């Protein structure tokens, strides 16, 4: 496939969307027990701040799957930025 000026933007779009998808999966893993009932014991436990996976400060007890999914998701988002910067640096100045 020939590279066009839109290719870096498509790369950035795919990485941002995929990053978001993984972040959504991380949230879904955390809140899965709440689908049935919000008064379920597991669901109530998951409402504690210790299960927050985005900021790893004490006390932290995030599920390994949520940490992995969210971490990789954020890396993908970061990986999209070089493409955005490449496009932005090639803009003609007014």
């Amino acid at each position: 496939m020939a590279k066009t000026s839109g290719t870096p933007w498509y790369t950035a779009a795919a990485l941002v969307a995929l990053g978001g998808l993984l972040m959504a999966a991380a949230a879904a893993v955390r809140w899965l027990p709440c689908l049935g009932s919000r008064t379920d014991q597991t669901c109530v436990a998951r409402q504690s701040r210790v299960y927050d996976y985005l900021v790893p400060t004490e006390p932290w007890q995030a599920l390994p799957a949520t940490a992995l999914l969210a971490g990789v998701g954020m890396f993908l988002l970061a990986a999209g930025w070089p493409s955005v910067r490449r496009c932005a640096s090639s803009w003609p100045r007014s």
Partner: protein
Amino acid sequence: MLKPLLLGGLVLAAPVVGVLPRGASPVLLAGEITLDIAGLAVMLAAPSHRLADYQRLLLAMVAFWLVGWVGQVLDALVFGLLTLDAEVAPGSGLLTAVIMIGCGVGIALITAHTPERGSPTLAARDPLERTGHR
């Protein structure tokens, strides 16, 4: 780019090397806010005469801003209305992730509907892109 890289690295490393002490929270928040303001400066400095490029940069920046405290506050506001008594409302994290997906889709859609730079269609639309040889 630095903020998702930093937070992603911390989150991935935490199960292996351990978490940051509680006292690191304000420092981390201050760092996030600084990087968000740097992102705002990038947006303000970017030339806006090519609307499609500016829109795509803005969407990428929204995704960047949503990672971290901005997303957490947004989720707390929205999902907190559904479950008032929870420490963290069920569903938190989903909204920001869905908006991020939307940003990616938006960038792709704008790219699909934007003529290639240098193409005759674009030259006709955007006089600033023309090479001026008269």
